[in-house]
C-alpha cells in the first residue's frame, strides 16, 4: 500500500520534453513551472483561482495551474505558452493576436493563448459566443476582451 510522503518524484512531459524531479507535495503546479523549470511565461495574477493567467494545457485540456499541485501532474503531458512556437515561428493564433491588437500589457496573454488554442483544436471555426465562453476563465484588465475575441475568431477563419 502506498504511503503518504512530504514529497514525490514525479515524471511528466512538458512542451514535448520529459522531466523528472522530486517536488514537495505542497508545491503548486504554477510555481513548479515557473520556479523549478524556469518557464516564466505562465503567470500568477490572483490567489483564488479566478484570473486564469496561470492557464496551461494538461493532456490537451486547459486547466489553472495555480489550482493544482505539481504532484498531481505526475504522468501528465503539459503544454505552456513557450511550447506554442518553439522555433519562434508564430502560430496563426499568435499572429492574429498581433494583427488585431489583442494584447496590451501582455500579462494575461499566455493564459489566453492556451485557452484559445485548446478551443481551436477542438472547434476550428468558433463563433464569437463560443470564443467568449471558452475564455470566460481568463481575466484581462487592459483590452476589454474586444480585440482578443476578434483575434481568436479571425484565427479560426471567421469574422470580417
Amino acid at each position: 500500500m502506498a504511503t503518504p510522503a512530504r514529497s514525490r518524484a514525479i515524471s511528466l512531459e512538458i512542451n514535448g520534453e520529459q522531466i523528472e524531479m522530486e517536488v514537495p507535495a505542497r508545491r503548486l503546479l504554477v510555481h513548479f513551472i515557473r520556479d523549478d523549470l524556469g518557464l516564466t511565461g505562465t503567470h500568477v495574477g490572483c490567489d483564488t483561482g479566478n484570473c486564469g493567467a496561470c492557464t496551461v494545457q494538461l493532456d490537451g485540456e486547459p486547466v489553472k495551474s495555480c489550482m493544482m499541485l505539481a504532484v498531481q501532474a505526475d504522468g501528465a503531458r503539459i503544454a505552456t505558452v513557450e511550447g506554442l512556437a518553439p522555433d519562434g515561428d508564430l502560430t496563426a493564433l499568435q499572429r492574429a493576436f498581433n494583427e488585431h491588437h489583442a494584447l496590451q500589457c501582455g500579462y494575461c496573454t499566455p493564459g489566453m493563448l492556451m485557452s484559445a488554442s485548446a478551443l481551436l483544436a477542438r472547434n476550428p471555426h468558433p463563433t464569437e459566443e463560443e470564443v467568449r465562453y471558452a475564455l470566460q476563465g481568463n481575466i484581462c484588465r487592459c483590452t476589454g476582451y474586444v480585440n482578443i475575441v476578434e483575434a481568436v475568431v479571425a484565427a479560426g477563419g471567421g469574422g470580417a
Partner: protein
Amino acid sequence: MTTSPSNSLLQSTGSTAVETEKPVVLEKGYVGQSIPRREDKRLVQGQGTFFDDVRRHGMGYVHFVRSPYAHARILSIDVSKALELEGVYGTITGDEVAIHTDPFFEMSVEPGGLIKDYALAVGKVRHMGEPVAAVCAATRELARDAAELIEVEYDPLPVLVDAEEALKDEVVLHDDAGSNVVWSGVFDWGDVDEALSEADHVVKIERLHFHRFSSTPLECAGALVEYDRGTGEWTLTCNHQMPGVGAIWMAPALRTGIDKLRFVTHDIGGGFGNKICLHPQYVVLCLMARKLGRPVQWTEWRTDQHTANAHGNERTFLDIEVGVRSDGTMTGFKVRAIDDCGAFPRYEPLGCIIWAQVTPGLYGWRNIRVDFTQVCTNKSPVSPNRGYSRMQHLWLTERIIDIVASQLGFDPVEIRKRNYVKAEQMPYETPNGCVYDSGDYAAALDIALDLIDHGSIEERREEAAARGKLLGFGIGSTLDSGTNNFGQSTLLNPDLQFSGNNEAAAVKLDIFGEVVVTLGTVPQGQGHETTAAQVVADILGCPPEQVNVRRGHDTWFNTHAGFSGTYASQFAFTGLGAVKGATELLRDEMVKLAAFVLQAPEEAIELADGMARIKDGPEEAALPFMALGAIVNANNAFLPPDFNPTLNHRYVCRPYFGMVDKEKKTGQLTLTYATQIHAAVVEIDPETGEVEIVDYAAVDDCGVRINPQIVEGQVHGATAHAIGAALSENFVYDEEGTLLTANFYDYHVPHAMDMPPLKTGAMESPSPVAPLGAKGMGEGGGGGIHCLCAAIQDALRAAGKAIVYDSCNPPHRVWSMLQDPEATRANVEVTSK
C-alpha cells in the same frame, strides 16, 4: 520646444482667446497608421520579462505580516520563533524601520502634513492588511511559514469606516496630526450665490456617493532589490510606474541620495495608477537587502493588492445646489465634497486639487463653489487610479445634469447640447483658468447616438416592456485631461516646490546606423515602443523596423526627468514630444553631416528610405544611416575642427503652463483635454434588479491619433473598467474595517461573457498645444460609469422614478431602488420661481 507662451496665459486676466503656435502635424507617414505592435512578438511567446521572472543567486523571498485589525495599538512583536525556522534569513519590524528611516514626506499642509508615515506600522496599525513586519527566507513557501510564526500582540481601538464620522474627530487615526482631516479648502469661482438666486429653478441634491474600486492590474506589485555594499546603491527590479516620485519619497526616508536608487523595469502587467505608491513596501525591501546582505524579492498577492495597495478615490458629495434657467441652461452649482483617503494620504492630497482640471465638466457654467475636505479612515490608502480624481468630479457633473433633466422635464440629449461648451468656443478657458484645447462635444455625442440608434429607443423600450424588462438609455460625457501642471500642488500646499511637467527621451544613431531610442516613460501596455518608433520613422524617413526602442525603463541608462513615468494621460504629449524633439535634433545633425559629406547645401538634403541624400539627385549622392554612424564613431578625421556632430541627442519636453494663482486657485492645470462620449442602452429585470447592457457606444476624440488601433484599445479597456465599476466592482468594508471584497470571487470584474457588444467611434480635433497635435487619452474619464448610472435611472422612470445616487449599482441596489424609489427621490428637492 513645444508651444510659445501666450501673454494672456501669463496674466490669467479672464477668458480670452489663447494664442499658440500652429500644431506641427506631421505629414501622414507612419504616424496615424495602425501599425501592429513590436512588443507583441515577445509577449505572445511568453518571453516578456515581468519582475517576478527575474532571479538572482542567493536571493531570499519576503513575506509581510499584516494587521488583522483595522485600528489597534501594537503591544509587542516577537520574531524569535520565525528566526528559529531553518531557511529563514531574517526579519524586520516597525521599530527597526523607525530607527533606520525617516517618515515619508507628506504633501499636504497641516493637519495632514503632520502625519508620520513609515514603511511598516510603527506603534499602531491603521488599516486591515497594513504591513507590520517582514520575514525573508530561502523559498516563497518558507517565508510564508515563517510569517505564521511571528507573534504580534494588538490592543484593538475603535474603527472608523465612514468619512463623515471621521470628521467628528472622536476617534483619531494619527495622533501627530491631531485630526482625521488631511486638508480642506474652498474653491470659489464666479458668483454662485447670485447664479442660484437669479435662476428660475434651484435643484438641490442632498447626497451623491462615488464608491471605492480600482483597476486591479493583473500583475501584482513587487520588486527584487539588491544592495551594493561598496557603493551604497540599491537596484530595484520592479514594476513601479513612476520611479521619479518613488525615488523622491524613498531617498530621504532611507537617508540617501536619489542616484543611489536605481529603478529597473522591463515589462509591466498593467498599472493604471495602482503602481505609484509602492514606496513603503520597497523601503522595507531596501532595508532587508542591506541588513541581510543578499538580494530580496517580494511579490504582492491579489488579496494584498485589494486590502493594502491602492484604492481609487471615494468621494461623497453633499448639499449640491444647481441653478437652472427656464430654458435649461445651468447657471452654476455648489457642493460640499468629502474625500475618504483611507489610512494614509500619501499621493492622495493631490486628489484634493486635481479634479479642478475639469471643474465645469463639459459644460459652460461659470459659477462654481466646491468645499472640499479630505479625511482619513481605517481603510486601505487611496492612490491614483485610472481617471484619478477627475472621474469622480465628472461623474458629479453628469449626475447633476441627468437629475436636473429628470426633475425639470428636459431631454438628456437636448439639455447637454444646450449646456456643452461649443466647438466655436475652443480653446475655452474655464472659470478657474484651465483651457480646454479643442473638441466638439455635440458632434461626438451625435456619433454616439447614431451608433446606438438613438432614434429607435422608445420603440425598443416598448418592446422590452412587453418582455417584462425595463429599458433605459443614458449618456456619459467625460474628459480625459492630460499633461498636468504639477504647480497645482501649490494649491494644496504653497510650500511645495513642484511646478510644470517634463519628460525626456534620447535618440541616437549607433555605430552601424541603427536608430536607438530610450524613453523616460514606464509603459505598462500602452505600446510606447511602437508609437515612438512611428514618430521617429516619420522624422528620419526610415521604416519603423529600423528604429530600436529600448524596452522598459532603467534610471541608470534611460534618460529621464523628475516627472518621468507613465501616468496621467500624457505620453502622447510629453513622451512623444520628447521623442520628437530629440529626433529633430538628430535629424538636423544628420542633414548637416550629409550636406558636408555630399558637398551640397543643407536645404538640398532629405532623409528618406533610410538614407540621407540630395533631393532629386543622382543615386550615388546618398548616404545610408550606417555611413553617417560610421563617420562619427569610427572615421571622423576629415571633419573640420568646428563641426563636432554626436548623433546622440537628449531632449526634455517641457510643456509650458501659465502660472497658478494660489489665492484664487486658478491657473492652467492641464494642457490637453480628450473627449469621450459614451451612450448605453440597458435592460433591467425588475424582479431581480439585474442590469444587462444591450447596446453600447464609446466615441473618443483625442486629437491626432498616432496609432488608431492602440487608441481604440485604450477606449475598450477604459470602458471595461468603467462597466465593472458601475455594475459590480466595489471595495466594501464592514464596521470592523474588514474588506469584504478582497478577491476576484466577491470583487467581480468583467470577464469575456460580461462585456456587451461594444461600438466605438472616433473624431480628431487636433490639439493646438501638443507637439504632434495628439492628446493623452489612456484613462478614459470613467465615461462608462456616468452613462450606466444615467441609463439605469432612465430605465427606472417607468417603475417609480428612482434617482441613482451611487456610482455602483449591483443588482441588490437596483432592486432596492425599485422597492423604495421614494427614499431616493427624497434626496432631491426642486425650488422654482
